[in-house]
């Protein structure tokens, strides 16, 4: 299958629309959330229209069928990550829910006063706040790896921090959602394991764009979200090594995660159900599996290459615009994300103006306040690419940014006196 983004666009109904200003949509906000191909929407509709029932628990035809589809989605996810067993796949509400599960269950059981959780300064709040909460609860500390001038982190800095802090857990993102930097999941995991730390990889920005092999990474925990891989909202995946899931105490309590309940107490069942209390996101799991199959058909290597080409083009053009400061490393060290600021122009004004041109980008701190603090920025604008974006869209983006400069440049404007009122 040859990779043609123009052709792939046909799979995504939303890409045909125009925005408020009447311009055709150029959706460059994929790091916040991706769009869905019709096959994913259809898979969920099909479930609801043809075989939906609650899972696991019934023996009538519909329940058997939906249970089979739900469990097949687990197996699809297992294969997507190359996990050893489908029992290592826990469906959660999203990346955030997954990390919180690890913090509350594994964290409370394994981390104590004075222990250290090591993260990078480039983490999304989802991989910071749960550790702050753990610190509040058990008295551990959260230590942050700094980034260097070029927006990356040297292995030697990681090695030194592992040696100094002897962390219980090293939790890092495989791809920064602001800088786009790819951190080396496999080698950092190996380093961490050698120093005795467990490893959580936040793959929210990696899963959409690269082949993940959790056995090769060897990380203890890997999390990602459905809505960032062309799948539905309301679902995410927590991969954990089976030995962890078996040893960890249950997190949320309720139906589905128990073996027995009495008036005196309860016993938890086996993973993965142990961590799936309540009616799970059934249609969402089925939609997610369809999305993963779609990405595999298109080919994650193709996607990565394509995005990188777009990123290169955008990066180079942006650097030529006066007053633009591109954050993070050069394109060869990052995924399809370009964040930037413009001298004396607020990121939100950039995004707002781009919207008039049909170009959808994010602006703000992108849930990465500590990173923006060290970069000395309150906010940045971010364009993020995906399989359906085109060279033409990148060019429209660049053109609109050039307009921004002209529009907001100081022109010696004078405020007009207000009309005199008689009040």
């Amino acid at each position, binding site marked *: 299958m040859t990779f043609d983004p123009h052709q792939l666009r046909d799979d995504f109904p939303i890409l045909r629309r125009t925005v408020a200003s009447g311009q055709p949509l150029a959706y460059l906000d994929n790091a916040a959330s991706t769009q869905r191909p019709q096959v994913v929407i259809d898979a969920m509709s099909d479930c609801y229209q043809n075989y939906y029932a*609650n899972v*696991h*628990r*019934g*023996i009538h*035809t519909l*329940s*058997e*069928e939906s*249970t*089979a589809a739900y*469990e097949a989605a687990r197996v699809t996810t297992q294969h997507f990550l190359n996990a050893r067993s489908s*029992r290592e796949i826990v469906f959660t509400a999203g990346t955030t829910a997954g990390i919180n599960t690890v913090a509350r269950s594994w964290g409370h059981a394994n981390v104590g006063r004075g222990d250290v959780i090591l993260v990078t300064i480039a983490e999304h709040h989802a991989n910071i706040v749960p550790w702050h909460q753990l610190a509040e609860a058990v008295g551990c500390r959260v230590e942050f790896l700094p980034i260097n001038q070029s927006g990356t982190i040297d292995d030697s800095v990681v090695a030194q921090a592992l040696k100094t802090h002897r962390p219980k857990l090293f939790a890092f993102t495989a791809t920064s959602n602001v800088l786009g930097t790819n951190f080396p999941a496999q080698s950092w995991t190996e380093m961490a394991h050698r120093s005795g730390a467990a490893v959580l990889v936040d793959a929210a920005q990696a899963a959409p764009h690269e082949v993940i092999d959790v056995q090769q990474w060897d990380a203890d925990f890997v999390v990602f979200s459905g809505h960032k891989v062309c799948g539905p909202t309301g679902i995410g995946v927590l991969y954990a090594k089976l030995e962890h899931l*078996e040893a960890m105490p249950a997190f949320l309590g309720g*139906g*589905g*995660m*128990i*073996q*027995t309940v009495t008036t005196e107490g309860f016993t938890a*069942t*086996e*993973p*993965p*159900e142990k961590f799936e209390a309540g*009616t799970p996101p059934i249609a969402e799991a089925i939609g997610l599996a369809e999305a993963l199959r779609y990405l595999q058909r298109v080919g994650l290597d193709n996607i990565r290459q394509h995005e990188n080409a777009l990123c290169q083009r955008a990066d180079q053009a942006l650097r030529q615009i006066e007053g633009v400061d591109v954050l993070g490393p050069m394109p060869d060290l990052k995924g399809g994300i370009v964040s930037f600021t413009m001298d004396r122009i607020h990121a939100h004004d950039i995004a707002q103006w781009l919207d008039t041109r049909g170009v959808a980008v994010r602006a703000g701190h992108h849930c990465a306040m500590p990173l923006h603090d060290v970069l000395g920025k309150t906010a940045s604008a971010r364009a993020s690419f995906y399989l359906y974006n085109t060279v033409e869209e990148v060019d429209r983006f660049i053109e609109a940014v050039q307009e921004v400069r002209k529009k907001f440049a100081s022109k010696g404007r004078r405020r007009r006196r207000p009309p005199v009122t008689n009040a």
Partner: protein
Amino acid sequence: MANEQDIYEEHVLDHYEDPFHRGPLDDATHADEGKNPLCGDVIQIALKLDDEGRIREAWFEGEGCVISQASASMLIEKVEGKTVDEVKDFSAEEMLELFGPKLTPNRQKCCLLSWRVLQSALHSPIDGEADADADAAGGSPRFGGPSLSEES
């Protein structure tokens, strides 16, 4: 999908109403019990092994749905006289075949309950600790399909 009408074929109901070796076994050497939280099925299996590792006698007791009880009867009838190694080699797939009617994944759990208990009973001598390798396997062997979670 299985046509469930066939599940309750006469052969199955015969075993349900007139089970093989249902009752206690006083001089058992090995025994274990298991539950299927899906149906609340319970099966106890008691074995008398001889010195050559052969099952001289096998009995079961239990409560539960037709499938769990009838399949237990079929299994017990089948394994009497077999060696421990032969029983260990007897796979989940063979158990489902022995039962006969095709079962949906949820009902397979009912059918495999006695098979699961038999496998762990082999590792559970009556006065003594469970074998090391049974412990390593988490007490009871695993099989495919959704795991044994509860229903609602």
